[in-house]
């Protein structure tokens, strides 16, 4: 304990530790090497000759104890143990951790440098790197996005389809992992009223198709242009820079029924992707981003069926 409160406690530890060792040595020596003076009064004797301590303890015990005593003295010299004395090795838990981190960094410095030098699309072609990325994904991402990256209904988006809420350029994907994302769809119930919300939800089911031009959607289209298009784009194509999803791609993270969509409009949505800058290294983040690039568009957009309202 090198960070002891005062030298008094250092001395206290040294005196007690060394004192205990000396008492042990004395005890052992007295058992093996001091003559026993028979003590006349009331010593119990059994079977004519058998009395307390008249048969010596086995000698190999003695050597065992000597070896253990030597080991403890050597240990106390090498490692911190005697008060504030740090030991000749200068060992500490913190140093040991720093040392193993350094060794890890040195061992993988060359491959890490190679990987950092490659673009995401190059990394995506590297099968070994993608194997590593898959295991990283399962540990750090799969708990939310699913082990196959297929997403979780109402919560974590599917990462294998072609839809990218926060953009699919390399730097956008890297930023999503590094700094996280906070979606901010405000609740519209107070501003629009329940009726308008339902009409709007109906309209969003068909937005981007020819049916949306029908006369029954006139009011909803006007509401959309006035309240929604600022973020979601004039024709609902979304704005990745704001995290406003494309409403025409058929993918509905929070459920595709009119009720689910109406709920999203009325109450708003504040999905959050946590930041990973403190949890993953740059190489790890690039590997994960490359893996996502390699998986992007590998499945068709498919809206989750399960509705998770009010969970």
């Amino acid at each position, binding site marked *: *304990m090198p*960070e*002891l*409160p*005062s030298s008094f*406690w250092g001395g*206290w*530890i040294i005196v*007690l*530790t060394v004192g*205990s060792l000396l008492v042990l040595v*004395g*005890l052992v020596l*007295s*058992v093996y090497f*001091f*003559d*026993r*003076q028979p*003590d006349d009064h009331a010593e119990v004797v059994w079977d004519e000759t058998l009395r*307390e*301590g008249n048969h010596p303890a086995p000698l190999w015990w003695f050597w065992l104890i000597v070896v253990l005593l030597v080991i403890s003295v050597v240990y106390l010299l090498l490692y911190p143990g005697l008060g504030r004395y740090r030991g000749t090795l200068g060992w500490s*838990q*913190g140093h*040991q*951790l720093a040392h*193993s*981190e350094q060794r*890890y960094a040195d061992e993988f410095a060359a491959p890490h440098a190679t990987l950092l030098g490659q673009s995401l699309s190059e990394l995506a072609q590297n099968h070994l790197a993608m194997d590593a990325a898959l295991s990283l994904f399962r*540990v750090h991402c*799969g*708990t*939310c996005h*699913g*082990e196959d990256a297929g997403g*979780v209904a109402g*919560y*974590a988006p599917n990462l294998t389809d072609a839809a990218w809420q926060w953009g699919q350029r390399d730097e956008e994907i890297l930023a999503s992992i590094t700094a996280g994302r906070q979606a901010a769809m405000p609740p519209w119930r107070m501003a629009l009223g329940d009726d308008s919300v339902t009409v709007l939800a109906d309209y969003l089911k068909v937005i981007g198709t020819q049916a949306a031009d029908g006369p029954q959607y006139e009011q909803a289209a006007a509401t959309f242009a006035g309240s929604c298009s600022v973020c979601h784009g004039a024709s609902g194509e979304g704005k990745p820079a704001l995290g406003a999803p494309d409403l025409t791609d058929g993918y509905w993270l929070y459920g595709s029924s009119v009720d689910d969509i109406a709920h999203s409009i009325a109450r708003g949505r504040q*999905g*959050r*992707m*946590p*930041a990973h800058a*403190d*949890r993953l290294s740059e190489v790890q983040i690039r590997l994960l981003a490359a893996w996502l690039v390699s998986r992007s568009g590998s499945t068709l957009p498919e809206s989750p069926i399960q509705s*998770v309202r009010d*969970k």
Partner: protein
Amino acid sequence: MNLMDWHRRIERHTGLLVFGIIAVTSVGGLVQIVPSLFQTSLSTPVAGLEPYPPLALEGRDIYIRESCSVCHSQQVRPLLAEVMRYGATSKAGEFVYDRPFLWGSKRTGPDLHRIGGKYSDAWHRLHFMDPRAVVPSSIMPAYRWLAERDADTGGSIQNRMRALQLLGHPYTDRDIYFAPQRLAGKSELDALIAYLQMLGVSRPEGG
């Protein structure tokens, strides 16, 4: 008089024997425990560490009630593999407002000391309702009833905060007065999530 005579004398006087046993067995504690009671680095909070606000404190008690520490530890040990998986090593100063600390000793589930901020509240909510919904291979039980139970247990939170205040947690009287309001309308699930989101977020410098 040699040591064997001492031995004999001690063996024949019960009082001496009891005293001797106490003296010998206390040496370990005197060396290991007593100096650490005076070691201020163990009882100084790390920068930014706050005592648990009422909702998180309630969540902590729910964590204890549901015996979460039977399966989850709260200590990242100074080993490369642990630091890479969980985050920075745990420091003594991070547990100053944990009475008792919940380090645990068994990991059926993962360590939770750096869980704060790792997942969103929404994830925790889904996960407590049905762990398999988010992690298909999980063996953690669901804790659905937490969502139905009220976190506000009728003022006992104030007593608990007062007890902690006596022990030196820097709660103000104002904190304690308004504590029940912080729990109003919250479920036990909200409280538990608030607690988990606070775990390990006041990381020591360079830690």
